[in-house]
């Protein structure tokens, strides 16, 4: 003490990483939400040469998986380094084997975990304690933090205690709630850290390292004679941990004045009821208990900080002797257990103390679950848990915060309870990802933090990557903010998009008398009439002060496009009075000048102008005394949607999914297909618009559309008699089909305005320069009439699949996409491939999808883009994990093959009953072409009809597997993070299995879903996270690896360069009776391109020789031909003509021009070399390729 602490407003990840980085020498990492930012910060600091407290720069290495990170961590520790890792959830699970080793060898280390849910009935990226609870048995100590400040402090305590005790630690804090919450904290200085972690302990750790100078062996195999005893040797080390943690906490207190204990009690000294908890929930409980005690209640809260080794004595002592009932809150779920782990530990500790006579009264102990997957724990819920204890017979097991109408576990609470101090200002802001709202709020927090205020910011994002909505929750005050839950009762509500105002949440979060700032194109006298009735009623009821500003116009006028953030931030400061107006404007302008300087004077000036213009345009609205509007908000889904969609899906879309009871939800993670069709998100002001008079009906636009919003049909012209007046059509350009019309229908409400269709259109209007046969038009002019047109279009019969030419892009436009309207980024480079897959094979495909972008836009609720056709058939899709996807898909193949075998066997057994001719036809049917498949479908239909008349076990058995007689298409899809890194071993094994699976790798060359981290697919010279100085290793040639087996069909495709080749590869891969691998160039937002140029970049990638198109077909080898087909012509562009257009390359050229030039030259050499290799392969005789030794299946 005695010095002025440094304050900073940072999030929990940075708080923990700041300490971890400064106290370690090696960081072995792998990206996983929500812990990735810790690793990214460590990497950035290391890249900038920032030293640790020992004066050296830590090494940061990204591994191929968390399993790999744990292995490298173990090795670094055995090498004597201070080493750490940052992870969460599935990542932590992958570390478990090494955790046993590290702990078993008494190796000091700290893993920092942003605690997250585990994938069970569904994946969740959000926070709870399931992951850390799954490692409580590994021998690692578990130390939990309940706030951003604690994440900083406990990171240091854990490092001190691990070195002192030799027991490794998991330091954890709640994912998102703490890891991503911005809060004002006091920073530990390097001196503080050095004081906590004495150099002699570091040296002692080094002295225990492996060294040939004093050799020994560690990691022996032990036998029944000694393993058991050896396992018991560590007990004294564990026994010392609680006291050593206390010592570190005492030292921290000496230096900072912040006092922690392994178990802390807060509340009434003579409490009768207490709750016990860990993590951020404990902070809410402490604040709620303080509020209740002030109101005279005899309640208390026990915060467990050290959970393993379990400090039973400290826990028992912390609970006042007066306590009669204890509710233990677990943020985890252990199905089938007697209770969740913390509950069991507390119960056992109290029971043992009581049994031993150390505690005369045995309190009633109940156990409850709360907060799974970042479900809120509000003060109302906290008070509810304590109120439940006051009842005669409190529920012994309960859930908090949900309506469990299935098992009756939930307990009541008052959702309105507000305990926050009056001095705390609360604000919420509703915006879009693209409008900069979150960035502006982070900026506001910095400004207020610099003014000496304490600030808190927490940001909620939706589940889409295009048009995504954001909600910012901000608090400011003169005292530290201890409220780790969303803002309700906000004094200020900013609605940054007019269209969001109808969301119930916007005004629900407003306090009585709150201020509402609405961004809208209407003036103060016009706006009232445009509001819906519920909005008007709520404004009147809550006596809300309404302000309007046309931020979009101001932003446009000053040259900021759709970035309305600065305009609205200025308005916030002007009317919220958190600072004096002039002072706020001054700070904002200073911040703008600083933040935007790097982008040049024009950007700075535009933002400064935005501040001034915003204040001119801001106006208060005179709110009438009562609502007058007749308008009701548009229902989230159409009235004719299925009931599940209307009740469950719609609630989730509206943002009120928290209110759904347990009974409403599927119990095994099974959800209906095709629900994006009901969503109609209207995310773009510009949408595709067809000009039939110019169109040559080539199908290119439909082929490349990432969102499947462009559909084509041909149909008898006579059908047009029923068409709406605005329905567009043209005579079909095809010989032999007179009297046939063609229509291309844009699903405008689902269009994201990416413009790829326009880029792909080969037609130029000779009369209007720049106009094509498909263009972007104002959505307002297209959407309205579009609805009736779509309804009519859908009523037209779909072309029969056997009549469609599958071999041409033009033909595929008539195949119904069974992957539609996903929430992927606007202009996504992956989704056109999935759409194509769904068009070609979707009605008989099962899909194993690796975790990543495709599993998120493919399966992130509330809706899913995988759809069904009119017969109810479509892709059956599942996501297992990130690392196991190839194996997962192989398993599907094995099941299908087995059931196919069983079906054939049963069919033969029932040959006579079912009819020999039909059975023989079904058994011997060729199933390569669509007409053959259709014929087989017809046979199976007939068989099923005949089976219905047979009442024998064998018939029922056949019926259950009959579907497998139609050739099933098994697809294994994922990104490069999976295929090149974490799943590489499994993929390799599956490709070597010889089984008939189709692997589609959508190669974006980075981990796109977690924000652009380097993978082994990242090209030489490109910048990515963990390769900030440009990648210095060449991309792995996955195609050549697979070709080496001789039995794998391999293709490298880029649909923007050669769509016909892509189509050919998909069809050949699918029909090939063995493993197939398609590596598909997928342009990505993480490449730093204008996504509209994605197709052009694909073309350039191919034309420069960077991405040579190829196919390797073992069938050709078997026929004596060269199986290696080089499909792209010789490079005709320099590599630079492709690379310099992408920020991932261009940014290095700007920051490190020499290195960029060096890497660019090497990359060009690598391209040349590979081209020569491929050319040579393309001219080899067949015998110089490995033969496929598999027997005919």
């Amino acid at each position, binding site marked *: 003490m005695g010095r002025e602490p440094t304050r900073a407003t940072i999030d929990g990840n940075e708080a923990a990483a700041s300490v971890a980085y400064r106290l370690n020498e090696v960081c072995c990492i792998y990206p996983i*939400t*929500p812990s*990735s*930012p810790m690793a*990214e910060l460590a*990497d*950035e600091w290391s*890249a900038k040469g920032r030293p640790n407290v020992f004066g050296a720069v830590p090494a940061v290495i990204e591994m191929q998986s968390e399993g790999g990170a744990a292995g490298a961590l173990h090795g670094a520790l055995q090498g004597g380094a201070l080493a750490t890792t940052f992870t969460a959830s599935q990542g932590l699970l992958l570390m478990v084997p090494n955790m046993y080793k590290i702990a078993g060898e008494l190796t000091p280390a700290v893993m920092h975990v942003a605690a997250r849910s585990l994938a069970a009935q569904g994946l969740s*990226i959000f926070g709870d304690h399931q992951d850390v609870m799954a490692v409580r048995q590994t021998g690692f100590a578990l130390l939990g933090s309940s706030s951003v400040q604690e994440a900083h402090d406990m990171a240091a305590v854990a490092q001190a205690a691990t070195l002192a005790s030799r027991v490794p630690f998991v330091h954890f804090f709640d994912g*998102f709630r703490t890891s*991503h919450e911005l809060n004002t904290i006091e920073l530990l200085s390097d001196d503080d850290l050095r004081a906590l972690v004495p150099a002699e302990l570091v040296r002692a750790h080094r002295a225990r390292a492996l060294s040939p100078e004093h050799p020994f062996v560690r990691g022996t195999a032990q036998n029944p004679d000694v393993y058991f005893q050896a396992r018991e040797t560590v007990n004294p080390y564990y026994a010392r941990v609680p006291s050593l943690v206390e010592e570190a906490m005492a030292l921290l207190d000496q230096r900072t004045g912040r006092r922690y204990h392994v178990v802390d009690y807060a509340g009434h000294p003579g409490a009768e009821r207490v709750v016990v908890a860990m993590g951020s929930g404990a902070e809410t409980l402490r604040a709620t208990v303080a509020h209740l005690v002030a109101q005279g209640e005899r309640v208390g809260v026990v915060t467990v900080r050290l959970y393993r080794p379990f400090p039973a004595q400290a826990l028992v002592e912390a609970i006042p002797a007066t306590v009669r009932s204890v509710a233990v809150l677990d943020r985890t779920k252990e199905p089938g257990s007697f209770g969740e782990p913390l509950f069991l530990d507390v119960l056992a500790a109290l029971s043992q103390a009581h049994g031993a006579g150390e505690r005369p009264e045995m309190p009633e102990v109940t156990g409850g679950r709360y907060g799974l997957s970042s479900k809120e724990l509000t003060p109302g819920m906290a008070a509810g848990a304590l109120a439940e204890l006051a009842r005669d017979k409190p529920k012994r097991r309960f859930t908090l915060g949900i309506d469990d109408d299935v098992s009756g576990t939930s307990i009541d609470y008052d959702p309105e309870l507000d305990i926050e101090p009056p001095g705390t200002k609360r604000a919420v802001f509703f915006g*879009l*990802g*693209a409008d*900069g*709202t*979150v*960035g502006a709020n982070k900026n506001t927090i910095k400004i207020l933090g610099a003014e000496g205020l304490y600030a808190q910011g927490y*940001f909620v*994002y939706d589940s*889409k*990557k295009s048009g*995504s909505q*954001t909600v910012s929750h901000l608090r400011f005050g003169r005292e530290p903010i201890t409220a780790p839950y969303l803002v309700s009762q906000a004094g200020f509500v900013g609605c940054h998009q007019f269209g969001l105002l109808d969301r119930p949440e916007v005004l629900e979060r407003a306090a009585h008398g709150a201020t509402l700032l609405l961004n809208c194109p209407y003036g103060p006298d016009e706006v009232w009439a445009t509001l819906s009735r519920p909005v008007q009623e709520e404004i009147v009821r809550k006596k809300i002060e309404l302000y309007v500003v046309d931020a979009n116009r101001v932003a446009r006028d000053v040259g900021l496009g759709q970035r309305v953030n600065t305009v609205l931030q200025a308005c916030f400061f002007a009317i919220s009075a958190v600072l004096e107006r002039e002072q706020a404007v001054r700070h904002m302008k200073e911040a703008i000048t600083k933040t935007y300087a*790097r*982008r*040049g*004077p*024009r*950007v700075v000036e535009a933002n400064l102008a935005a501040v001034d213009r915003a204040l001119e345009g801001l106006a208060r609205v005179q709110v009438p005394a009562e609502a007058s509007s007749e308008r009701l908000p548009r229902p989230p889904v159409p009235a004719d949607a299925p009931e599940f969609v209307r009740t469950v899906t719609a609630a989730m879309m509206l943002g009120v999914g928290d209110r759904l009871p347990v009974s409403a939800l599927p119990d095994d993670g099974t959800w209906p297909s095709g629900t994006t069709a009901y969503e109609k998100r209207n995310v773009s002001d510009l949408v595709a618009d067809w000009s039939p008079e110019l169109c040559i009906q080539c199908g290119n636009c439909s082929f490349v559309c990432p969102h499947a919003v462009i559909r084509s049909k041909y149909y008898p012209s006579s059908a047009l008699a029923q068409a709406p007046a605005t329905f567009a059509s043209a005579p079909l350009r095809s010989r032999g089909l007179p009297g046939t019309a063609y229509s291309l229908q844009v699903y405008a409400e689902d269009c994201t305005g990416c413009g790829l269709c326009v880029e792909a259109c080969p037609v*130029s209007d*000779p009369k209007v*320069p*720049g106009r094509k046969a498909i263009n972007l038009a104002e959505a307002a002019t297209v959407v309205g009439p579009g609805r009736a047109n779509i309804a009519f279009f859908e009523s037209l019969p779909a072309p029969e699949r056997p009549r469609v030419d599958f071999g041409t892009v033009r033909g595929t436009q008539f195949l119904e996409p069974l992957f539609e309207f996903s929430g992927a*980024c606007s202009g996504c480079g992956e989704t056109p491939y999935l759409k194509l897959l769904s068009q070609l094979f979707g009605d008989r495909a099962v899909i194993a999808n690796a975790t990543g972008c495709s599993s*998120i836009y493919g399966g992130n609720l509330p809706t899913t883009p995988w759809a069904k056709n009119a017969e109810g058939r479509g892709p059956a899709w599942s996501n297992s994990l990130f690392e196991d996807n190839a194996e997962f898909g192989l398993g599907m193949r094995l099941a299908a093959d087995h059931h196919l075998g069983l079906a054939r066997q049963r069919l033969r057994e029932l040959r006579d009953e079912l009819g020999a001719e039909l059975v023989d036809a079904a058994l011997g049917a060729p199933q390569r072409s669509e007409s053959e498949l259709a014929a087989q479908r017809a046979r199976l239909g007939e068989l099923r009809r005949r089976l219905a008349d047979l009442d024998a076990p064998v018939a029922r058995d056949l019926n259950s597997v009959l579907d497998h007689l139609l050739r099933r298409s098994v697809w294994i899809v994922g990104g490069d993070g999976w295929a090149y890194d974490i799943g590489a071993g499994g993929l390799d094994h599956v490709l070597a299995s010889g089984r008939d699976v189709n692997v589609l790798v959508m190669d974006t060359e980075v981990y*796109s*879903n*977690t*924000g*652009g981290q380097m993978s082994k697919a990242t090209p030489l010279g490109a*910048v*990515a*996270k963990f390769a*900030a100085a440009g990648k210095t290793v060449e991309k792995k040639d996955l195609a050549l690896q697979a070709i080496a087996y001789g039995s794998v069909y391999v293709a490298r495709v880029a649909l923007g360069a050669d769509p016909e080749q892509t189509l050919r590869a998909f069809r050949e891969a699918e029909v090939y009776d063995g493993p197939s691998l398609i590596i598909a160039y997928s342009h990505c*937002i*993480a490449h*730093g*391109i*204008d*996504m509209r140029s994605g197709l052009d970049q694909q073309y350039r990638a191919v034309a420069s020789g960077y991405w040579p198109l190829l196919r390797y077909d073992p069938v050709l080898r078997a026929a004596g031909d060269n199986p290696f087909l080089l499909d792209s012509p010789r490079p005709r562009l320099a590599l630079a003509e492709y690379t310099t257009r992408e*920020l*991932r390359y*261009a*940014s290095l*050229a*700007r*920051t490190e*021009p*020499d290195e960029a030039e060096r890497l660019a030259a090497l990359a060009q050499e690598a391209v040349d070399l590979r081209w020569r290799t491929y050319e040579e392969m393309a001219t080899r005789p067949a015998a110089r390729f490995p033969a496929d030794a598999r027997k005919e299946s």
Partner: protein
Amino acid sequence: MDLATDYMGLSLRSPLVASASPASYTLDGVQRLADGGVAAIVLHSLFEEDLLEQAERHSALAEAGSESFAESLSYFPETAGADVEPRRYLKLVERSVAAVQVPVIASLNGASPGSWARYARQIQEAGAAGVELNLYSSPVGPATPGRWLEDAHLDVLGLVKAAVDVPVAVKMSPCYSSVAEMATRFIEAGADALVLFSRFVQPDIDPETLALVPGVGLSAPTEGRLPRTWVALLRPGARVPLALSTGTHSPEDLVKGLLAGADVVMSTSALLRHGPQYAAVLLDGLQAWMEGKGYDSVSQFRGLLAAPADGDARARERAGYVDALRAANAHQAGSW
């Protein structure tokens, strides 16, 4: 044979200078130009507009999709964001100076008054022997008076002159109302040399795609007449070196430029078209001509056909200038 020439205070081994062009975009290109035999190299222009445009585009790309989705709050490392520092250009200056024996002159096109001076200072610190200001105005609205543009150009020159000690040349546009007066004003404002002229960048039109296309073509030999005429006219009154740029395609063009009074003759298109080694062809041709005419040094004939000094109208007439100009006008104008 003495080809030595003084230009903006620099002693050059010949009057042939490589002007700003893509040939000097890389260090390798600069070296090849020097090896080719030019006496000095003007580097390609540092266009601040390009830097700003790039910074804005890069920051927009780096931010695209950020703060939108909980798992990917950004897509690039922090260092990938934009900045407006001309690192690459300054490195090229630094390295070119170290790599070649001939003087390296940097070319600058700023976008705001402050940045002209700042970049000029940075260029000087990087070791450039001089700075050439590439002054031109983009098309402006009908209400903008020409004097404003002229004054703005003079202001830029003043700022740069105040900021650096190395010599500063002004590459002029031929589009001032009174080219001679502007030249005089530049000289009075401290220009250490004038370069005649910059080429106004005019986009072309593709009739097939109905689109505008970038239209920086190589110059034709006839384009040398305009600057040559102005060099000849300005020579008598100009007290600073004059450089003739544009239209030097053959040794004959080089000779003509010197005869008109240019101190140095710059070549872009010919070196791009034929390669840097073409400088030797030009210089060999110059020397062969000098030999034929019996000259030992360029100073003996430089400006031989420049216009006589101002005020001496009869001398001009004697020298044939009035006739030549009149005839040329009549020929060009026809019956208008």
